[in-house]
Every structure is written in C-alpha cells, then in structure tokens.
C-alpha cells in the first residue's frame, strides 16, 4: 500500500515526506488488520459457542443413553476419544453428573472416567511439557479422584515442579485421592516446598479431613511427625500446626503440647511464631491445659504471645478463658487490647456479662466500651 500513489495531490519529494508516508502505510495496514481481527474474532467466538452448545447436547444425549443402558461404555468412549475437541466437554458433563447422581448411576459415571482410553489421554498430557495441558490434566485427575498407578507416579513427580502452580495442582490432584497413603505422601512432599502458602496447606488439610475416623487419626499422627521432621521448612510447620487446630485434630492436642515443651529446649532458643501457632491451635482444639502456661510463657510481656493467648481464650470460651481475657487487658499494647476485645465479643455468654457487672467501675476505658457493645449485642439477640 503506497499512500503517495493513492492520494491525488502532489507532495514534496523530500525524505521526510516519503518516510512519513511509509509510516502511514504501515500503520494503516496494522490498524485495519486489528480492526478486522476484532470483529473476526467476535464472529469466530460466536460460532464456536454455537458449535460447543451443539456438541455438548449431542454428548449429553449419548451419556444419558449409556446410563439408560441403550449404549455400551465401549461405544460411548470410542465415539468420544476419536475427537480431542469432545473430550473436555465429555469430562465436564461426567463431573456435573457425578456431583448430582447417587448409587448405581454414580458408579456408572465413575466407570466412564476410569476407562483406560481417557486415563491414557490425560496421562500423555502430563508429559506434554505444556503447562496449560498439564494443569488441565491435573484437574481431570483431581475431579475423577481415580488415577492409574503410572499417572500417580507422574503426578507425584510434578509436585517437585519449578512451577508453583503446577506443584499445587499436582498435590491437590493426589490429595483428593481415595487412598490415605497416596494423600499423605503427596501432602508431605508438597509441604517440603518453601514457596507454598499457609492457605494452600490449610486447603489440602481440609481435603484430607474428609475421611473416616481411623484414617483421620492416621493423618494426625503423620502430620505431627512432619512437624518434627527437619525436611519441612519452619514456616510450613507453623502453618501445619494452625491448620491442625482449624481442621480439628483433637487427638493430637497432647502431642502438640509436648512439642511446645520440647521446643524450649532448642539450642537456638524458642521461636515465637512457632510457640504462638501451638497456643492458638490448642485453643482451637479446646485443650484447656494451655491456659496453665500463660504465666510462664508471658513472663517477658511479649505482645505476640499475649495476642495468641487472647485468640486461644476466645476459642476456648470457658470461664477460665474469660478470666484470662480480662487479665490480658492489663497489657500496655493497643494491639493486645484490640484482640482481647475481638475475642470477648465473640463469646456471647452470660458469664461475660456477670463478670463485667461486678468489675466495671475499675476497668480501663477500652474494656468498658467493649462491654457496652457486648450488652447491646445481647439485647439485640434477645429481641
């Protein structure tokens, strides 16, 4: 495209003009292409949506025919696997049905997801080297909760991936598995990573907890061993402890307290974050014995420890815990006061009110305001 030839008037033949005209030509071409691309993509998207809708409808019909016994599993899988475009749609439909069906129908859908063809298709994606495909495959294994032994090994290797997203997706794929050993092996491996967040650890522990009591106890013991292990980074240990409290590993509470006692014998001295996490976790696990350690542990008036004891007391909500919360107000820090106040507000108990009535005049202002708010809450609750 040469603008100089198109525009019907004469220009100076200088280099500047020529350069500018060339620039205009280039910009015009690029701009027109972008503009065309914008609308072409919209049309393409609309068409794709329509095709997807049609295909999805067809696959749904076939799956329903399979459930009604009108079509065999082999026939259905064969019709799906021949076109890679159909597979994600098919898996999506199966997952939807899996969440809504029960009994025999649910088992029949599970059988579909466990077919060798489908498992092989997604296993190959694990080795593709393409992050997008790997994540897609990991989601498949997570949702179907049934990976073949070869796939499990491949997924396990991916937990050590340099890519944090892939590592988490891989761990989640195995943690959702039906076998507790596979779950715990994956969980331990991912907890060895320094880049994993406390939130990811908590999420995985929530998955782990969806099991029967025997497996749950087994998990608790293994997690305590992990906390003692030198392979787990320190920050992950505190996340594990807090998560144990959040999820409710009550049987392991005495072991956590032992860990706390043992921690003070460390040659490098105690780590405040570690101590705080155990105090808070024991509070969440309703392990009242932790309150006995308040005086010893807060001797040096450490603000973080006071805050942790406030949180633990709020979770315990026993008479002793409420007494302790009132004591905590004696600390000079505003942050400690705020936490004690938040915890007191959480406890909607008559006990709180009675204690307040007897001591109100001698209390600091922040405590009195907290009390006023508790009263108001209780009034409204009565209403």
């Amino acid at each position: 495209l040469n603008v100089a030839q198109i525009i019907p008037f004469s220009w100076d033949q200088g280099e500047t003009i020529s350069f500018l005209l060339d620039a205009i030509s280039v910009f015009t071409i690029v701009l027109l292409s972008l503009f065309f691309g914008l609308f072409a993509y919209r049309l393409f998207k609309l068409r794709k949506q329509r095709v997807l809708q049609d295909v999805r409808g067809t696959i749904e019909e076939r799956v329903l025919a399979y459930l009604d016994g009108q079509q065999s599993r082999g026939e259905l899988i064969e019709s799906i696997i021949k076109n890679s475009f159909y597979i994600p749609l098919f898996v999506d439909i199966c997952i939807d049905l899996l969440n809504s069906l029960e009994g025999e129908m649910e088992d029949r859908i599970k059988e579909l997801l466990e077919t060798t063809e489908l498992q092989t298709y997604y296993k190959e994606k694990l080795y593709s080297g393409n992050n997008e495909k790997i994540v897609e495959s990991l989601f498949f294994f997570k949702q179907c909760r049934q990976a073949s032994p070869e796939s499990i090994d491949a997924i396990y290797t991916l937990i050590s991936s340099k890519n944090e997203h892939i590592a988490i997706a891989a761990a989640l794929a195995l943690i959702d598995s039906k076998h507790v050993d596979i779950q715990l092996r994956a969980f331990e491996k991912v907890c060895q990573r320094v880049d994993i967040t406390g939130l990811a650890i908590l999420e995985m522990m929530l998955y782990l907890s969806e099991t029967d009591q025997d497996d749950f106890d087994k998990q608790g013991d293994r997690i305590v061993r992990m906390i003692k292990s030198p392979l787990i980074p320190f920050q992950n240990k505190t996340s594990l402890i807090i998560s144990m409290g959040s999820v409710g590993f009550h049987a392991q509470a005495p072991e956590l307290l032992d860990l706390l006692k043992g921690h003070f014998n460390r040659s490098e001295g105690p780590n405040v974050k570690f101590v705080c996490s155990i105090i808070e976790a024991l509070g969440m696990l309703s392990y009242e014995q932790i309150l006995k350690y308040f005086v010893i542990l807060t001797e040096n008036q450490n603000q973080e420890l006071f805050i942790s004891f406030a949180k633990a007391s709020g979770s315990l909500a026993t008479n002793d815990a409420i007494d302790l919360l009132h004591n905590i107000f004696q600390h000079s820090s505003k942050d400690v006061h705020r936490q004690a106040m938040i915890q007191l507000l959480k406890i909607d108990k008559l006990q709180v009110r009675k204690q307040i009535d007897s001591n109100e005049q001698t209390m600091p202002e922040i405590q009195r305001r907290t009390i006023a708010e508790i009263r108001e809450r209780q009034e409204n609750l009565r209403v």
Partner: protein
Amino acid sequence: VFEISSSIAWDLFQIINLVILLYFFAINLSYFILVVVSFIHIRRQYNTLNVHDFSGVFSSNLFKSYSIIVPVYNEEDDIEEAVHSMLQQQYGEYEVIIVNDGSTDKTLTYLKEKFDLYSSKRHISSDINHEPIRDVYASSSYANLFVVDKENGQKADAINAGINASRKDLFCAVDGDSILERDVLLKMLSSFARDKETIAVGGIIRVTNGCTFERGELNKISTPSGFIELIQVVEYIRSFIFGRTGWEFFNGLILISGAFGVFDREAVIKVGGYDADAIGEDFELTVKLHKYHKDHQIPHRITFQPEPVCWTKVPDNWATLSSQRNRWQRGLMQTLWRHRRMMFNPRYGFVGLVSMPFYFFFELLGPVIELFGYILISYLLLTGNLSVETSLLFFIIALLFGWMLTVTSLLCDELTYGKYPDATDLLKLGIVSIFESFGYRQLHAWWRVKGMVTYLQGKMKWSMVGKKPDLINFTHWIWFILINAIIIYLFYYGLSGGLPL
C-alpha cells in the same frame, strides 16, 4: 547578528521538534508494550487461575475476613443498589461498613429506612485520625451491615473512619456508586492466597453507564449511548485493564484505584491510613505502602487481579469529567512531589527506577508537552517555518498510532474477557476510538495542564463542580467543536495544497 540569532532559533526549533517527536514515539511505544505485556500476562494467569481456587478454605471462616468500606457523600440515588450488591457477596466472613461523610442530602435517611438501622455502641478504634463520628448504626435486617455517620472530611477521611470501625483482616474500599460482581471478594482473595507477601490488590473497574441492574445484580451489559461516556469506556479498557496489569507484571504497580481495591488492614494502619490532605488519596496510599515496606525492608507485593470486576459510574457531562481529570492530575503531581526522593532511587527497585519516572515523564508531563507541541506547530505553521504537508502527515501518524493502541486494547479485551455481548457495542467502541483524537484528546490535555497550574497555585482541595455546570458543559462543547473545525480546516487546506495564510 539577526541572521545568527535566527539561525540559533531555527536550530533550537529543530531540536525541540526532534525531542517532541521522540517523546511522542516513546510514550506511545511504552503504552503499546504495556498493553501487549498485559495481554500475555492475563492469558497466562487464566491458565492457572483455578489452581488457587481454594474453595474449601474460602467457604469456611478459616482464612482472612473482609470489611467492605464504602465512603458515601450525597449518594441518595445510587446507595440502595450499591449496598444490595455489597451484601450479596459469595464469601464466608465479611461485613459492610458504609461511611456517611456528612452528606447533605437524604443518603442517611434512605439507609436508615431501607436497611432498618438502629443506633449501635460498636467500638471504633483510634488507630487513624479522622473527623468526629456522630453515630454508628447497625442493621436489624442484615447482621453484617454497619453505617458510620461522621462529619464531612473528604473521601480519604471517610475511609480512615471505616478502617477504624473495621474488625477484619482485609478491607475493600469501594465507591458509593459502584456495583461489585458477586464473586469479587473470592477472586481478590486468591491473590492473597498465591503470595503471602501480598498487602494490596487492585481489581478491574468497568463503566456502569448503559448497563442495567436489579437489586445490586447486573442484568444486562451494554455500552452507554452518550459520547462522553463511550469515550471513557474505551479509556478504562485501555488504561485501567491493560495498563495496570502490565505494571503488575513488572511488580511496579503504584496505583490501586480508590474506586476498588483490597488492602491488608494492618499494613495500611502501619502507614497511617489514607492521607486526608492528599488529592489523589489512592495513588498516595499505594506509593506510601511501597515506600514503607522498602524502607523497613519488609517483603511485599502490590498486585492487580485482572478478573474481578467492579462496575462504576463515570461522568456523563464535560463539567464533572473535566473536574475529575483536573483532580487526578493534581493528585498525581502532589504524590510525585511528596515522594520525589523515591524517583531514580535504586533502593525502591522497579518502582523507583521505572514506575515513578514513567509517571513523571509520561503521565505528568505528557499533557504539558502535548499542548506545547500544538502551540509550537501552530506557530511554525503560521510563520511558514513548517510545511503544512509535513505537519499534516505527522498528525495523521499520531492519530493512527493512538487509534492503533486503542483498537489493540479492545482486541485484547475481546480475546480475554469479551464482556460486551452485543457486536454493535464493539462497533460503537471501535468508532468512538477514532474520535478520541479529535477534540477530546486536546481538551483532556488542557484540563490536566489546568490541574497542574491549580496545584502550583496552591489550591489543593477537592474541587467540586462549579455553580454553573450547564455553562461549563456548553463551553466545553463549543471548544470541542472548535478544535474539530480547526482539524478539518487543516485537513481541507492541507490536502488542497497549502494553508491560505
């Protein structure tokens, strides 16, 4: 002597011309790079977005809790819709704190009536200073709704009161005329889940004008019909969505919009909250957070989530728009001046070495250089020192470059989000982007230069729209038409062989 001096002047003009030309290419090229980088970044994020969808934790109350803080001033028309949208969030533990910043209309009365408010004894901490609080209300209908009624003290002051009233780990500051999509909080939280060093997250803001809502929920997305609003839709797509995502990619984001952002409450309290004296309180806070954490060597991340959407109302008349842009420019100038020691300072990393200088040279000085360029070219044209053909061609290139940038943004938006379902909306945006360079761009530069002058004169406060907005609107339309007439005049005579000067 005259010949020598005129020769020096001519050389000087040549140098200035070259500088302006280089500046023009540099600014457009950097915006273009930002758009492309953002596009790649968004596409990449899309692939891993679900990995961090920790639905188990998010549906429990085991992770961070939120306060949505909504500062309102005379928002009687939009407040009910906005509060309903805030109350419909898909999230476990959150509260909504509306801060009535001394409204003079019926905002508070409406809130009391619609949400059954009663006077509450809720404790307000004194972590950050703000204007006195008149009363605090709780709702009988919604356990997580609170209203703080305080003396007027501007938006920053109102958010500070909201931060003091909040008891949650995070707070989300939202404008009173904004509507949040239902899964916004969940999506914003994934940023905090991804990286434990995250202290603030910005989200996408889109234009509500033209869309329809029902009880806080978006019914239909479509573009507005007015020219002024349409232009802003294009602007928001270009700069808010793709500009900011690009900065986030480089970890150099220094602006989280005041209309929608999530912050770690403790981190904000540590820096003293929002600065009530700041004109651009959002910009000031983001820079302050960077500075504090770098000064104290605390690892931190300020990030941008390209998916969550907050819908906000944009000005539909020249008067409000010019006032808003004037204020943005004053805020920019004030913050850059206050934190001038961060500029080119390696201690502040990418923010000090790239983001701050970029904002100074391109965002702050951009309109000055643009206006200077118009004046210089006009002078050179009138004195016959510049050929009409050359200047016209330059103008066409500038136009095409700007248009290309906008269409690229629209295309990237379509490739990633594609929020506007109707193809005619896309066509409208494509067409209006052409006219952005005719009249609007020049007026925009003028408002911003005026903002800088106002700031230098010491007028620091929020400027309200004048007493005669109709007159201001009328004047701006006249200017808009006049600028277009000049451009058409230049084109007409340029194409027919020269100006009749």
